[in-house]
């Protein structure tokens, strides 16, 4: 069972330059824990205090997880997770 996680340019320093990594887990939380074990520090850039960071958008199969359970969003074999930092400023 494997989920593909697409990594944005700014976080590829944690993945040795890879654009995507594979992870296992039945929820988004489990997938992020799994990929963080091989790419230490990656999860901290996406998750803060047990929730998604405010300026990071995450999609599972094109669905914004803020509307489907956040880190508890279910994931299954073959799913594609996209991590997309918000383009924002002041």
């Amino acid at each position, binding site marked *: 069972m494997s989920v593909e996680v697409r990594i944005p*340019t700014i976080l590829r320093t944690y993945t040795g330059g890879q654009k995507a990594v594979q992870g296992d887990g039945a929820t988004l939380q489990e997938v992020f824990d799994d990929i963080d074990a091989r790419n230490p520090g990656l999860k901290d850039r996406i998750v803060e205090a047990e929730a998604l960071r405010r300026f990071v*958008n995450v999609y599972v199969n094109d669905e*914004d997880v803020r509307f489907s359970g956040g880190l508890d969003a279910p994931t299954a074999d073959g799913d594609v997770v996209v991590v997309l930092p918000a383009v*924002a*400023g*002041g």
Partner: protein
Amino acid sequence: MQLLTGVITPSLTAVLKIAREHLDAMIVHAREDHPDEACGVIVGPEGSDVPTRLVRMINAERSPTFFRFEPEEQFGLYKQMSTTGEEIVVVYHSHTATEAYPSRTDISLASEPQAHYVIVSTAESGASDGPVSVRSFRIVDGAVTEEEIHVPE
């Protein structure tokens, strides 16, 4: 002694080369949305550092002091660029009451290390035809580097 010029990749040269029509389009957009901040991108082929296609983005905050791309629209752009092999070459936004220099928020939220960050200030002109200031920066790991804007005529 080795000459280093040859190994500097295009993405690291401290200059933004941009078409006049794109420069003008960013200014028009900034004036239209004044006093709220306008925002958008110019995308180009991945790795080329050449901005070819300007896309206006909705400022979901509709604010004179803040901007954030509307998330669904940004995701749509991401999917489109994945298909076409493009990436964001320029991120632009306007400052409507302050100078065209990255704010602390701009620096802390900058998340496109490959991009040129262009800021258009309409502080002097407002929505009318007065003078605007346009400047370009690299923002990487909290460090701001201003760069020249080169418009081939």
